[in-house]
């Protein structure tokens, strides 16, 4: 676990500390129907950075976003944007651009009229409006589509209009409420890169909400993982992936196999098997723990000898082989760990049909790759 | 029970009820031999409220008692039944009613159109006054059954100095929006002709005086309505005076509204209502419909029916209802008619539409 730390420090040092754009302190939203939707969320977001709030549905991520946008008043806690309390001004006076889940474009207007709308509402000099609208349509590569009506545009083009409309008045903050959720995968991935490009070009502080871990990893400078209304971890994408702070984060990003057991110096004990791993923080011996190992970090071989360099290795049997295109996913089980189905990625392009179902293999990993967390209730 | 009456019963009842000559003009033998089959009911179109109550008590109930034939009252507006009857006769269908209780003017239109049965052979016609005979028509395509006056009805408290003596009294500014007329001006045209300085002899050729007076009245923003409206308006204190048939005023008074009526010096329109039978009825139903009208012309029926309406009938010797003796709305003696204006149905039928249109033109402005 200590490996990640130096990298983090060096990266921190390499960047100039930027002013904080969004500051949330102990934000709580309790609708009074059971557990709070958002529970004491606190974070800082620096100016110009792209933050993604990632979580499954019902995790409170959209509520958090709506509070930041000022559409929902928090039960308690405070939010400041560039030093000003958010709820001090009504939504239409704030400098926040938002791209909505269903885009919320105005169907009775053309693309250009949609983009000009915020400028008119914010009383921009009418002479400057057409030029500005053109610039932002160009920015989203819709220069020739200004006169089209919304229903004459494709899904991707509508996305771009929505982005241009949210950015044209140069807001202090751009909020994205899962706008890509409805798109097919190819278009979604294209738009993810577009978001990234535009955000870099304008340098606008951005908060994105999604349940798509790939999107979060691709577009973000920072990621907040939420579950059950709480912030589970706030980190850069690499850190988050490499050093999850708890089993939820470990399980939500990537494909991991979990092994329950008791803590043991340098690993965990499950049945009579000692598995090498790295403890997340101080864990006393004998504490119930769960170890998480990512699919790409498990090695799989036919002969036990080849895994001599691994800290842990044991024989297993192939339960299933799943072809995923660029790789194979093996599902393997060991007699000594009944009920644990290890998921193992195999990238060896030369030997795609290496093992068949029922084949006897050996799997193993290094101590630094298995993360061991205290079991939560 | 009434349906168990035998012919003899009818005969006895008929004889017993009066000297009424329901059957007297018919030799008994002929009646017994030829009395046609009775329908289970006959349908009489009537006006609602006190109007139908009076008819039921005076004519329909005695008729049922005597003949065993039930009487159904159809309360369709007189103006609305007219095109239905016309259409039925034109298409050779059986008309929707047996007897129409109608204004003489309206009935004259039907008579001119030739859709009414001749009623000259009714025995009780012998006992009627001149009023029963339609003017300007051959024979009896309809029979007038009573007369009525379009009086000036007023709220006494609005006239503390005594009853209005002239229709011109209504032009007083304090009656702005407080007077009511029929919405086609019916009943008002003739007194207006006099009040406007004209002569009744000029009707219909020169009615400018009438229209001038209507224009003056228009400046008073009169309410325009139909029979039921007047009662409602008096009851709800919307109006102080109205040109309306005395029966409506009497009805409102009987309902507890403080009301009086008068015939101003210019006079009031006097007109009649009548009964008639549409063509195309089956023979037997026509027979019994005629018997109904014949009964309506009997003295007892007239007495009860017209007590209810408070109107003078068409047979001599009727006793005026309480309080209406010598009342201007109940003319019986020749001098009573001095201030009443009677214009022949023929003239009315010919010109009514024009008068109506003219009145509307002024009032809808």
């Amino acid at each position, binding site marked *: 676990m200590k490996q990640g730390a130096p990298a983090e420090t060096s990266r921190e040092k390499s960047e100039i500390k930027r002013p904080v754009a969004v500051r949330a302190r102990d934000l709580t939203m309790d609708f009074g129907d059971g557990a709070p939707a958002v529970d004491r969320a606190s974070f800082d977001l620096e100016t110009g950075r792209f933050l993604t709030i990632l979580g499954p549905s019902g995790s409170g991520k959209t509520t958090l976003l709506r509070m930041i946008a000022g559409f929902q008043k928090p039960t308690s806690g405070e939010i400041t944007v560039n030093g000003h309390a958010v709820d001090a001004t009504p939504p*239409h006076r704030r400098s926040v651009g938002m791209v909505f889940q269903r885009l*919320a474009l*105005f169907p009775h207007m053309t693309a250009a009229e949609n983009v000009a709308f915020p400028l008119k*509402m914010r009383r921009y000099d009418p002479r400057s409006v057409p030029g500005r609208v053109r610039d932002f349509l160009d920015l989203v590569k819709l220069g020739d589509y200004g006169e089209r009506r919304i229903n004459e545009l494709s899904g991707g083009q509508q996305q771009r209009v929505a982005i241009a409309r949210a950015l044209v008045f140069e807001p202090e903050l751009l909020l994205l409420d899962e706008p890509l959720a409805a798109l097919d995968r190819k278009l979604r991935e294209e738009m993810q890169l577009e978001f990234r490009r535009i955000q870099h070009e304008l340098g606008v502080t951005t908060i994105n909400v999604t349940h798509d871990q790939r999107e979060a990893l691709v577009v973000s400078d920072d990621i907040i993982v939420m579950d059950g209304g709480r912030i589970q971890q706030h980190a850069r994408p690499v850190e988050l992936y490499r050093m999850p702070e708890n089993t939820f984060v470990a399980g939500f990003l990537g494909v991991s196999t979990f092994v329950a057991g008791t803590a043991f110096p340098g690993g965990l004990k499950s049945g009579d098997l000692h598995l090498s791993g790295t403890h997340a923080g101080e864990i006393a011996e004998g504490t119930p723990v769960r170890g998480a190992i990512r699919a790409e970090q498990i090695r799989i071989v036919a002969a036990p000898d080849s895994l001599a360099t691994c800290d842990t290795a044991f024989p297993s049997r192939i339960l299933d082989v799943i072809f995923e295109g660029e790789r194979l996913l093996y599902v393997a089980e060991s007699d000594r760990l009944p009920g644990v189905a290890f998921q193992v990625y195999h990238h060896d392009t030369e030997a795609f049909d290496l093992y068949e179902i029922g084949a006897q293999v050996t799997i193993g990993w290094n101590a630094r790759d298995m993360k061991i967390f205290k079991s939560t209730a | 029970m009434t349906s168990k009456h035998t012919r003899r019963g009818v005969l006895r009842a008929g004889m017993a009820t009066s000297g009424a000559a329901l059957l007297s003009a018919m030799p008994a033998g002929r009646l017994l031999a030829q009395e046609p089959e009775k329908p289970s009911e006959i349908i009489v179109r009537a006006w609602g409220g006190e109007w139908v109550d009076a008819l039921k008590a005076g004519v329909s109930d005695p008729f049922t008692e005597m003949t065993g034939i039930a009487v159904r009252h159809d309360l369709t507006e007189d103006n609305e039944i007219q*095109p239905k009857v016309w259409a039925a006769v034109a298409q050779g269908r059986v008309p929707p009613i047996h007897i129409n209780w109608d204004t003489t003017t309206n009935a004259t239109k039907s008579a001119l159109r030739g859709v009414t049965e001749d009623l000259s052979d009714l025995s009780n016609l012998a006992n009627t006054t001149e009023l029963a005979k339609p003017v300007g028509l051959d024979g009896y395509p309809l029979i007038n059954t009573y007369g009525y006056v379009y009086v000036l009805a007023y709220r006494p408290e609005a006239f503390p100095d005594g009853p209005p003596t002239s229709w011109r009294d209504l032009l007083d500014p304090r009656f702005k929006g407080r007077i009511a007329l029929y919405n086609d001006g019916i009943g008002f045209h003739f007194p207006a002709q006099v009040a406007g300085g004209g002569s009744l002899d000029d009707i219909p050729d020169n009615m400018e005086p009438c229209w001038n007076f209507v224009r003056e009245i228009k400046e008073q923003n009169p309410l*325009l309505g139909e029979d039921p409206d007047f009662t409602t308006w008096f009851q*709800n204190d919307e109006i102080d005076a109205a040109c309306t048939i005395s029966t409506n005023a009497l009805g409102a008074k009987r309902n507890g509204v403080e009301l009086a009526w008068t015939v101003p010096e210019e006079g009031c329109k006097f007109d009649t209502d009548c009964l008639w039978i549409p063509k195309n009825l089956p023979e037997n139903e026509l027979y019994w419909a005629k018997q109904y009208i014949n009964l309506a012309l009997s003295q007892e029926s007239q007495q009860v029916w017209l007590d209810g309406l408070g109107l003078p009938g068409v047979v001599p010797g009727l006793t005026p209802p309480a309080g209406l003796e010598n009342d201007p709305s109940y003319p019986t003696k020749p001098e009573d008619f001095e201030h009443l204006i009677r214009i022949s149905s023929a003239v009315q*039928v010919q010109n009514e*539409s024009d008068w109506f249109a003219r009145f509307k033109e002024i009032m809808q*402005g």
Partner: protein
Amino acid sequence: MDALEAALDMIWPRRLARYSGWAMIAPAILLVGILVLGLVQIAEGSLHTLDRSTFLPSEEYTLANYQTIIDSTTYWRVLWRSLLGAGLTVFFTLLLALPYSYIMVRTSSATIRKSLLVVLFLPFFIGQVVRAYGILIVLGTSGAVNDVLGLFGVEPLRLLFNFPAVVFGLVQYMLPFSVLLLAPALTAIPRETETAASSLGANWLQSFWHVVIPMAKPGLVGAGLVVGTLSLTDFAMPAMLGGGSQDFIANAIYDQFFRTADQGLGAALALLLVALGSVIAGVVIAIFGAGTLGMGGRK
């Protein structure tokens, strides 16, 4: 099952299948056909004048009835009053119905929504005539409104029997119809669109004006059309609240059919009303397009 299908085959053989669509709309066509037949008869009737010596329609065909209408100042006035009344009714009805349906659709309180619905539907169970009587009582010289005014020392006012009273009655009568026609159009506007407008800098009024009203246009046009044509052809409100001097075309038609027995003139007036209503509806649809009314036309 087979027997059933065989029987069905007997009644409606498969080769007729492509006419099934026509069979489905046959009842509607039949109804429209009866209407057209009636119109043809009315048109025929309008070409005969009334002979007042026999009270029979004339034998020969003539346009005299139409000439009578054109020459008559009364009918022009009645026509103008009907149009003005219908126009004002549409304006005020939509003015009131829009906020009403907006609140009904948008409110987060189930109680408010239910109360608004009940208040809306209650008048539906009370006929037009009874409602007009209610207005007669409430606005009468000795009615509730004048009683209240009396408390402030105001002499009883004549609130009834004039043109504003007729328009008031019509608006009151039409409000539920227009709310029912507007509510679906407003429901179809996603709440998010309004949130978006506000995040883009529009205050509530701007968002209502620039976003809600344009997006509710199909409902507004549809409601306006229904309210307009119903008001234009209304009979009861002018008859009862107009005090006899505020006739609409329908009252004039009634008079000709039922008071002067001049069915030819009545027919001509009726045809004129049909033509007027059709022209107005046609113009509205031409301007806004059938698509606006959700009838699938191209914009």
